[in-house]
Structure formats: structure tokens, C-alpha cells
């Protein structure tokens, strides 16, 4: 079983880690380039300083960033776009669908400031990106479970021929989950904690919250649950979902995204079609436009924090 850190025991930042990885990779592969609608300085400041010829800032113009990347990819280059997910997935929605996915252009999109973790209010909360992008053919969706996994996702995206969307959280000071190394494979979820009473399937930043809830359930209530890091939303690991449904008959999904159409929606579809008897509870951002507050305060108010997970698991039993 994978060794994990305690909740917020170690904090890491995906942005500078990716910045460094890009610098390393750009030396090896001259086709690599970073395209951004004017936010790369906030994400990869060292890369853009050191690799000006492999960096393209198209200005605050997400549609152009996506199409420009598609054009580059069709000509054999390896473009990564770094942008804010709320604008990438909605302002440039059709550009991703038609000029990246339809053309099967080898474009990689790294979206940050997702869910409520990034702050900023509802103009800036990317709560719908997974629901929207999950419906695009050819697109692979990865939601890294911790900052280190964002690096694994980066290299997996390079190895994968075709469009990939990597959904960072805020990309700064987030819980490291994995203490020991492990194999990361697109489309293969990871059982990071084993139990028998229920299964919590989480993605992204919520993996660390799921693990902490599982620890509290075990230590305070004597309830053991599986915790799954479902880092790939598309293609979803249907086999693992079914395996967990058969084993525990109770699944709770946890995501920093609308409960409609994201991880919860994907798991619900798989379960419904599987015919396996299983109770499902989706936790995430409810069907509302949230206001301001710290991530934990908002989670508390909206019902998808650690306490909510503990309470919902107990309610399912």
C-alpha cells in the first residue's frame, strides 16, 4: 500500500515544480513551448525568463491561446497552455472542442485556480470545467491528487499523443499526499487507503481531505473506508469504480467542482449502467454560485469539507 503523508504535514506548490520541469524538458525538446493568455508569469516565471523563444504570451485572449497552440501542434510542435481554468474551459470552450479536440491536435492545457481553492469569487471559480470538458471526444482529463502528481501528469501528458487537460488546484501550498513513489497511469485510479465500510472516491486537492476524513473515521469511530485517488476523469477507471461498488456498496465522491457533471457525475453514470447495487453520495460544490471566504470556511458552509465527509459516511452506514 502506498505510504502517505498526514493532512497538511507537508505542503508543496505545483506551479514552481512544473516551472522547473518545463525548463528541464525544454532543453531536451526544442518543440516544447509554453503558450499563455498573460498568466504564465504567475505560474512559470523562471521558464519564461530563461526560455523566451519557447514562450508565447498572446495577451488576455484565451481563444487565441488555444487556437495558436492548435496551429503549432498541427505543425508538429508540443505546446502546453497555462491558463486559468474558468476562462480556458468557458471563454475558449469551443476552441478547445473544435480546434484542439476535433483536430486531435497534440495540445496540453494546464488549468489552475480551480474549484474554490483559488479564491477570487464566482467569476473566477472554475466549478464547471470538468463537466464541460468531459463531453469532448479525444480529450484526456487529469486532476492530480497532489503537487507531486502534477509532475507525473505533466510527463504522462507529454507521452500521450493527443489533447490533455491537467487541472491543478491553486498550485500553491497544497498537501503532499504520496510519501512513497508509485506508478501513475492515465486512466488507472489509485486505492491509497483500504477499508471495508464504504469508499470515498476523490480527485485533485480533495484527495488529501478524503484521507484525513478516513483517518478521523478510523480513529474516532472505528469505521474503515477505502480512499481512491481518481486522478483521471476521462477515461474514467470504470473497473475500479465497479470493484469498489461491489466491495463496499457505498460510494461517496468528493471533488472541488460542481456536484453536477464532474467526478460525481462520471461515477454516477458508471454505477447506474453497471447494475451493481450501490448507494452513492456526491459531495462537492452544490448547485450555487459561492461567495467569498477561505477554502475551509467555504467547504464548511457548502458541505464538502472533512466534517461533511465524516458525517456523510456515517449517514450511509
Amino acid at each position, binding site marked *: 500500500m502506498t505510504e502517505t503523508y498526514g493532512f497538511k504535514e507537508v505542503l508543496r506548490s505545483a506551479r514552481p515544480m512544473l516551472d522547473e520541469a518545463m525548463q528541464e524538458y525544454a532543453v531536451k525538446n526544442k518543440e516544447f513551448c509554453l503558450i499563455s493568455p498573460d498568466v504564465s508569469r504567475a505560474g512559470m516565471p523562471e521558464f519564461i525568463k530563461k526560455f523566451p523563444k519557447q514562450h508565447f504570451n498572446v*495577451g488576455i485572449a484565451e481563444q*487565441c491561446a488555444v487556437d495558436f497552440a492548435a*496551429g*503549432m501542434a*498541427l505543425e508538429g510542435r508540443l505546446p502546453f497552455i497555462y491558463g486559468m481554468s474558468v476562462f480556458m474551459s468557458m471563454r475558449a470552450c469551443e*476552441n478547445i472542442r*473544435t*480546434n484542439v479536440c476535433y483536430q486531435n491536435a497534440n495540445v496540453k492545457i494546464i488549468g489552475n485556480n480551480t474549484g474554490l481553492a483559488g479564491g477570487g469569487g464566482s467569476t473566477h471559480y472554475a466549478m464547471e470545467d470538468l463537466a464541460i470538458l468531459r463531453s469532448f471526444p479525444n480529450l484526456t482529463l487529469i486532476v492530480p491528487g497532489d503537487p507531486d502528481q502534477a509532475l507525473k501528469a505533466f510527463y504522462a501528458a507529454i507521452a500521450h499523443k493527443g489533447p490533455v487537460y491537467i487541472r491543478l488546484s491553486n498550485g500553491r501550498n497544497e498537501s503532499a499526499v504520496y510519501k512513497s513513489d508509485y506508478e501513475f497511469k492515465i486512466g488507472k485510479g489509485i486505492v491509497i487507503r483500504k477499508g471495508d465500510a464504504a469508499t470515498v472516491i476523490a480527485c485533485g486537492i480533495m484527495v488529501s481531505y478524503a484521507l484525513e476524513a478516513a483517518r478521523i473515521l478510523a480513529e474516532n469511530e472505528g469505521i474503515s473506508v477505502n480512499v481512491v485517488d481518481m486522478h483521471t476523469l476521462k477515461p474514467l477507471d470504470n473497473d475500479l469504480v465497479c470493484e469498489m461498488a461491489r466491495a463496499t456498496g457505498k460510494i461517496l465522491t468528493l471533488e472541488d467542482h460542481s456536484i453536477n457533471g464532474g467526478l460525481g457525475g462520471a461515477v454516477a453514470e458508471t454505477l447506474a449502467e453497471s447494475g451493481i447495487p450501490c448507494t452513492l453520495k456526491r459531495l462537492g460544490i452544490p448547485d450555487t454560485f459561492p461567495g467569498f471566504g477561505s477554502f475551509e470556511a467555504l467547504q464548511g458552509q457548502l458541505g464538502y469539507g472533512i466534517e461533511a465527509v465524516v458525517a456523510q459516511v456515517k449517514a450511509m452506514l
Partner: protein
Amino acid sequence: MGHTITIKELEDAASIMRENILKLSKQTLIHIGGDLSMADMLTALYLYKIRKDLSNHRWPGRDRFVLSKGHGAGCLYLAMATAGYGRIEEIFETYGQLNSRYGMHPCNKHNPGMEVSSGSLGHGTTLCSGMAMAAKIRGDRHYVFSLMGDGELCEGSVWEGAMTAAHYKLGNLIVIVDRNKFSLNAGTEDEEQGIGLEPLAAKWKAFGWNVMEMDGHDMEDIVKTLDSIPDPASDVPTVIIGNTIKGKGVSFLENQASWHHGMLNDEQLEKALSEIRAARKEKGE
């Protein structure tokens, strides 16, 4: 480049293309108005200007062409087939049918030699900027051509791409605007329903582009203009405003927003073909 085709031959080819556009619009719904306005320019591009290798569609030295106004697919298919990318008969035999490579908007998955699947408007400058940038980085000498409709210039993304192309000095990017002065609803300068594109040349200039204009139905002017575009290594992107007439060549189709798309009946087809043939005969004499 050893172009041996004459103006007369290009004119004849364009005339035959017009006939085929009309025949196609008898059998299926196509964007007949815009197809007829772009026919001369696309003929010149495919039969005269664009460098290609029919035995190797991925030849790196080929000029790229992207039909930003993807609804002009009928005209594109005919131009490509005439240039050797397929058979004109296949267009007529299969258009719109299951598993056909020919439908209302171009799809590159089934059409070797077609660079991009298009149809969603406003992506010519953005996507082609990426293609032109990649070529510039590699030091390639080919052009990236994109044919845009004038109506699609209302899409904001066009101007995002225009700024980007100018910023990155993409002199290898040549946009041709089919300025037929109509979109689906109305004339572009219609006081009530047109959003108003003029002063169009000044707008492109203000965005940092080299602006050229031509008569998009005068083959001599088209060829002369295409011959005088800047070298691909230049540092300013070029837009050619091709002044055209929507529905060109058929009296009852010309300048009619209602013929943006449509189908001809037998009688209309006969009348339209006779007009095209009469014009060709007159020109030939």
C-alpha cells in the same frame, strides 16, 4: 515556381467551378452565395499560387491553406478536386451521405491535403498564427493562407489573432477576405441589420497588418496581387481584401442575402447555367 497556367485557363477553370457549384446546389443545400463569390480567388489559389506536392500531402515545403469560412466547403472541394486532390464525380456521388468525405463543412480526417477541419467562424487568424509561428521558428519558406468571409470578421477572436500575428511578425501569414459585403442576415453595411465593417482596410492597418486590395473576380488582378505579396520572411502579416459579389455570375443570386445558402430548382439551374456559359462565351470572344 514555373507556373504555366494562363489567365484564360484560370478563368475557364473558375467558370467550370461555378457551373459545378450550381449543379451541386441543385442536389444539396450549400452556401451558394459565398461559394460563387470566392470561386475565382480559390481557383487562383489552388491552381496557380499554392505550392503543393500531390504525391506527398505532408511535404513540409507546401503552402498551407485554411478555409476559415468553412461554409464555403462546396467551393473548396471543387477547387481541391480540380487541383488533383480528388475526383469531382465523387463530390456529386457522395456529398452529405454516410461515410462521405464531403459534407457541409470541411473535415480533414477524411480529406488528405486538407490542413484543418473548419466551419466555426473566426478562427482563421488565431489558428493560422500558430501554424505560421511554427513555420517561422523552423525557418520554413512556405506561406500560410487563410480565406475568411467578411461577415466572420465580427467574431472577436479574429482580432485577437490579428494582434498576435502582428506582434509575432508573421509575414508568412496571408489572410484573404472574401469581401462580398453580405453575411447571412443582411448586407454588412446595411443600416439596420449590418454591424458595419468599414473602414475595413483602416482597421487591419491599425492592427499592424499590410493591407492589399484586389478585385476578387478579375483573374488578372488576383494573379497580380498574389504575385506581389511580401516574402514569407517579411515581418508584417498581410491581408488581401478581395472585393467580390455574393452570388457572382448569376443575376438572380447576386447581392441577395436570401441566397446565402439554398438549393436551385431545375428551372433556376438552367437559367443560372446559361448565364455562366454566356458570360464565358462572351469573355472567350
